[in-house]
């Protein structure tokens, strides 16, 4: 981003600031969520029941179709060749042998690719979904080591892969910026995240820190990570005239359709993206160059194309989490009261994306302190664009912050839980807004009791044979988000069945199941009378499965659509109905019909209303209100994470023997799927703590371990039985009283492990991952 763009953004931010102040000061009742969702009070319906996943049977049979599994007449297979230099130009490109190879239909390079606009980079516009904004096969320039330089289409994958190996490219390499340290030495730039400068200064933190009787001041480092969804990115793409059809693996179907439309100069309605099943996303399943390449090649060849990235291809073409170097310094009085919190540091991004890993976001709302200095700085490298990965900012930011708290507690001789509780804020410490719902202290108390926290010994004093045993804890936190654009359509038929349609996504979060429960309860229907349809860009709403916001977005949209539906039904019911004269707000769904909320015997069934009106069905569609609640309250989820580790004194190997997550995330909609989501986040957090690292060759700018054999994920034996509990206290200001819970589990987990390792060994490791060499 250049300086003019930066300035425009900052001015825009100032105008937004005024608006923000007005929203903060408005009365609660003007704000979405100001009047609690009536569903919060209903305790005996479908919501809160441990319903098994409705898509379970198709998934366990292997009958759920994923993006690379749509058979199409005349399909050809794509194989992608990647650049082997980080910067420069293609000097010679020989494709003749590849073109002549058996089965080859097309070799597409910058020489023959159709003219394309770059992808709108994620966060550069409301529906932008592109991982970067670089030209795609438009010229001979190379921008990262791994950039696609050619696409081969052939009748079989084997033929395409073989032909690709016959392409001969000679590069004219130029000096590239691929070293974090070297670029940092040349100077950093302030980070802008979602249009906001990642900087907070309250009081003079450095002076307060210097004057504090107790302080910690240390640097923490976290490496690059890759999402590694087990389903590699894939798409099956075809053209029908000017209409583009994409079977995608996507957590952003509408964003992807709109963004592809920009690339190909189409109206967004001419692009149809579906994604009924997604084999994991974690932030990675948005729009990257492969969908564009497949669509361009399909156009050129006049054939439908399947692009299924190899695992290496995912590492070369789909960005991951960037690295961070964070300083956390905390000053405290004798009583543990924080006088200063400093959390600053540097992360790497590119000139072609808008994603500085915002590692201070959790620190803005975590603790009360007299002074704050928070700052994210960036360097720009010639590398594949980094992106969002599960809890961007919080996952790595809480590692640094929560380790520092543990270090300070140790120095003060205080229990780290008590130190946290002592600095518990009564309102958002940097925004000044009230919390919508914050029960972290309760989560800590219950968790500590259940985990047996009082058995924690002094650092390095508990040994069982070869094994040093220790316990640690840390706070996890993730904001409650709801993005603008949510909408839903409800269709109700005379036989009392409802279809709820939202352009949302099911990547394994349990969306389909949980929202069937919610809709059934709202409408007063049984689960088998409700169908939720999703994963299709032609459905209502702009709903990103990201930021843990999908539940809130869908929840608010369905509330709005149900309100509209009730209005329609009341009109149809007319004057002969027991409901005559009532307003939609006074009416809710119950037992297959509508009733007056505070007088449930005043009711009429859907079937009766529709048949008297001579209608087979009624449909209503509505948009959710703008998410002003986010500026009116400080809205966050919390977790008290407890970990027990065993560290081998001889080999340095760390095993996690017990883990407990005690969560405060509003009302839990389905305990079965929620437990799995919490655990899933925690397990990714164990990976972050102990083994995960995308190794980047700083000389060549190339990822060195682009495979599941060399990038280590937690496997079954690495994962203990993880205990998960929750407060289940509804947030009075959110739909259903719920918070999204997809990301919270990974936050705090890294620090809980590192703090436990310190307690076991007396060794403080501040560089992730905590591999055995660092403990010997």
């Amino acid at each position: 981003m250049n300086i003019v763009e930066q300035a425009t953004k900052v001015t825009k931010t100032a105008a937004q600031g005024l608006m923000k102040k007005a929203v903060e000061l408005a009365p609660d009742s003007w704000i979405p969520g100001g009047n609690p969702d009536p569903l919060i009070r209903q305790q005996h319906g479908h919501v809160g029941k441990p319903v098994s996943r409705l898509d379970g049977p198709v998934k366990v049979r292997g009958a759920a179709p994923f993006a690379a599994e749509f058979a199409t007449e005349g399909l050809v297979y794509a194989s992608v060749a990647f650049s082997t230099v980080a910067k420069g130009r293609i000097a010679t490109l020989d494709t003749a042998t590849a073109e002549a190879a058996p089965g080859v239909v097309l070799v597409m390079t910058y020489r023959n690719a159709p003219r394309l606009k770059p992808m709108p980079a994620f966060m550069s516009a409301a529906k932008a979904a592109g991982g970067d904004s670089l030209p795609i096969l438009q010229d001979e320039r190379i921008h990262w080591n791994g950039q696609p330089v050619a696409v081969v289409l052939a009748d079989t994958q084997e033929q395409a892969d073989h032909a690709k190996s016959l392409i001969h490219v000679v590069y004219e390499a130029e000096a590239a910026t691929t070293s974090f340290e070297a670029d940092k030495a040349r100077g950093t730039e302030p980070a802008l995240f979602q249009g906001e400068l990642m900087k907070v200064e309250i009081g003079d933190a450095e002076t307060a820190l210097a004057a504090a009787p107790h302080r910690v001041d240390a640097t923490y480092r976290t490496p690059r990570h890759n999402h590694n969804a087990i389903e590699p990115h894939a798409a099956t793409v075809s053209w029908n005239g000017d209409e583009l059809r994409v079977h995608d693996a996507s957590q952003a179907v509408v964003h992807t359709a709109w963004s592809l439309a920009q690339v190909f100069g189409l109206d967004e309605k001419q692009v149809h993206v579906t994604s009924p099943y997604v084999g994991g996303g974690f932030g990675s399943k948005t729009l990257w160059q492969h969908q564009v390449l497949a669509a361009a090649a399909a156009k050129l060849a006049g054939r439908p194309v399947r692009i299924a990235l190899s695992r290496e291809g995912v590492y070369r073409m789909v960005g991951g989490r960037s690295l961070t170097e964070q300083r956390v310094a905390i000053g405290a009085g004798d009583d543990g009261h924080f006088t200063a919190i400093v959390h600053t540091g540097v992360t790497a991004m590119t000139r072609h994306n808008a994603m500085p890993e915002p590692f201070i976001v959790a620190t803005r709302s975590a603790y009360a302190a007299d002074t704050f200095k928070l700052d994210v700085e960036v360097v720009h490298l010639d590398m594949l664009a980094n992106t969002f990965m599960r809890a961007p900012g919080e996952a790595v930011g809480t590692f640094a912050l929560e380790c520092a708290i543990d270090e300070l507690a140790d120095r003060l001789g205080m229990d780290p839980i008590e130190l946290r509780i002592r600095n518990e804020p009564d309102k958002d410490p940097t925004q000044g807004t009230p919390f919508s719902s914050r029960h972290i202290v309760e989560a800590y108390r219950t968790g500590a009791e259940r985990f047996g926290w009082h058995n924690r010994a002094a650092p390095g004093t508990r040994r069982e044979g070869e094994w040093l045993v220790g316990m640690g804890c840390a706070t996890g936190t993730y904001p409650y988000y709801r993005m603008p654009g949510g909408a839903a359509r409800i269709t109700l038929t005379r036989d009392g069945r409802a279809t709820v349609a939202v352009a949302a996504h099911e990547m394994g979060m349990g969306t389909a199941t949980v929202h069937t429960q919610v809709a059934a309860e709202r409408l007063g229907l049984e689960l088998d009378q409700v169908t939720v349809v999703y994963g299709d860009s032609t459905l209502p709403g702009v709903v990103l499965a990201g930021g843990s916001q999908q539940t809130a977005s869908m929840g608010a949209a369905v509330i709005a659509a149900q309100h509209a539906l009730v209005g329609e039904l009341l009109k149809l019911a007319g004057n002969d109905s027991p409901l005559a004269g009532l307003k939609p707000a006074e009416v809710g769904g119950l037992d297959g019909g509508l009733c007056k909320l505070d007088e449930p015997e005043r009711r009429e069934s859907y079937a009766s209303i529709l048949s008297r009106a001579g209608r087979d069905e009624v449909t209503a569609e509505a948009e959710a209100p703008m998410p002003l609640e986010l500026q009116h309250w400080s809205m966050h989820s919390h977790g008290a994470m407890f970990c027990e580790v065993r560290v081998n004194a001889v080999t340095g190997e760390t095993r996690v023997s017990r883990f407990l997550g005690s969560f405060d995330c509003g009302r839990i909609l389905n305990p079965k799927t929620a437990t799995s989501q919490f655990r899933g986040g925690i397990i990714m957090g164990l990976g972050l703590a102990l083994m995960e690292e995308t190794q980047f060759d700083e000389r060549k700018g190339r990822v060195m371990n682009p495979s599941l054999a060399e990038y280590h994920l937690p496997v079954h034996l690495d994962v203990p039985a993880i205990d998960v509990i929750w407060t289940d206290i509804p947030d009075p200001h959110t739909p259903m009283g719920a918070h999204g819970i997809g990301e919270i589990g990974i936050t705090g987990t890294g620090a809980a492990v590192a703090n436990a390792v310190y307690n076991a060994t007396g060794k403080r490791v501040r560089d992730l991952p905590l591999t055995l060499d660092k403990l010997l």
Partner: protein
Amino acid sequence: MSIMINGAAMSLPEDPRVSLLDLLREHHHLTGTKKGCNQGACGACTVLVDGERIVSCLALAMQYEGRAVTTIEGLADGNELHPLQQAFIEHDGFQCGYCTPGQICSAVGMAAELKRGAPSNVTGDLSADTIAFSRDELAERMSGNLCRCGAHNGIIDAIGATFAARPEVAA
């Protein structure tokens, strides 16, 4: 030249480069078996060949002439799910479902190995005739099947509930 897949004789490919995994997915449209890495590192492509689990991405289809392959599509008995499939639903042994067919096929093969007393890296007594379906044994033996959604607990619970309670279910 043919291969038995889920009890039916099916053709083998002409191209010797075709893996057993691609034969299933691309030639016979049995897409229940998944491709997560195509290099033997994730287990998503696990199928049973004559009752033994293998990663089908590292198997050349031609070499399996005459062999009997069971995929996830062949485990259920018509509409009746295999007890392990049912247990995966009850114990929430998956989220996205992409690793699931591999986990299930792998667990069926694994249970047979355990039942016949083949030791693993965590087996304490190597001379014992029988090995318990303990949590550690199951977790160790399933460690070749990655799950990124983090359904590990549900998976091990489902396997334990299916085979520990009723070892006769194991082949």
